[in-house]
């Protein structure tokens, strides 16, 4: 299936979870990051159970210098 991850297209195996996505980004641990799917925040507590499906827009943000 195809998703947009931080604006980039990615192919994923069906049933991928949030941690799988973070692994792709090299943030397996996921400390200090937040994930949104189609504009809605996915609470950390639901990362494992949440199933990514085809066409989803996923944003993974972290803190950086700024402001």
């Amino acid at each position, binding site marked *: 299936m195809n998703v947009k991850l*931080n*604006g980039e297209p990615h192919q994923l195996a069906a049933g991928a979870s949030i941690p799988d996505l973070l692994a792709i*980004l*090299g*943030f397996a641990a996921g*400390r*200090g*990051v*937040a*994930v*949104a799917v189609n*504009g809605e*925040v996915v*609470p*950390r507590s639901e990362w494992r159970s949440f199933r990514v499906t085809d066409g989803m827009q996923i*944003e*993974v*943000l*972290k*803190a*950086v*210098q*700024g*402001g």
Partner: protein
Amino acid sequence: MREKLQIAGRVFQSRLIFGTGGFTSLQTMADALKETGAEMVTVAMRRVDPMAGGSILDVIDAAGCDILPNTAGCFTAADAVFTARMAREALGTEWIKLEVIGDDRTLLPDGPELLAAAEQLVDDGFVVLPYTNDDPILARRLEQVGCAAVMPLGSPIGSGAGIRNPYNLAIILENAEVPVILDAGIGTASDASIAMELGCDAVLVASAMSRAKDPVRMARAMRMAVEAGRLAHEAGRIPRRLYAEASSPTEGLAQL
């Protein structure tokens, strides 16, 4: 006993809030942060970048500072609210420095969008510190919707132009019942002193340090300037006069 800065019930020893933008390395930032003695550090939220080395969070933790996420780069209330929620999830804090800007060239706040975002975030349980214009009316409306402080600008972000309209700032200060934190425009130490002398409760400094030729030295200057300005405010300055006021005895002069 000197009064301490209190925001939303949290007490701070330092009246300088540390902005992280513009430092060329995390090490320089860490050294500057140490010099300022700041207890709260603001950070932006961006997409994770697999290439990016080092973590700003480690630096802030090591310094024992609180983190204050911001919504820098947001142009609409919706963007800002989303970014605030992501920050809360990522960093585990309800505190948010709310920025909703009107364009890329001035980075000035968009009042109506800012007010709308502030209202939603307060309802959503956030401790909202809005970056706002030097507009006394907008400042009061932000206070009325429940912001924990107001952060009026002195001049545009990174302009280093200091406080362009001290009169508006004075009006804001006279009327505010929440802490007033000068945000944006500080270019050098005296700008920070002036803000504190006018009665600001704190200042946020970023570019003035991070883009100075010697950021760490400027950071030290800023710590002293904030303290000097606060002390001067407490000490009660002499009035300004057109003419002189003799500081020497007018009696007892020798006669030739």
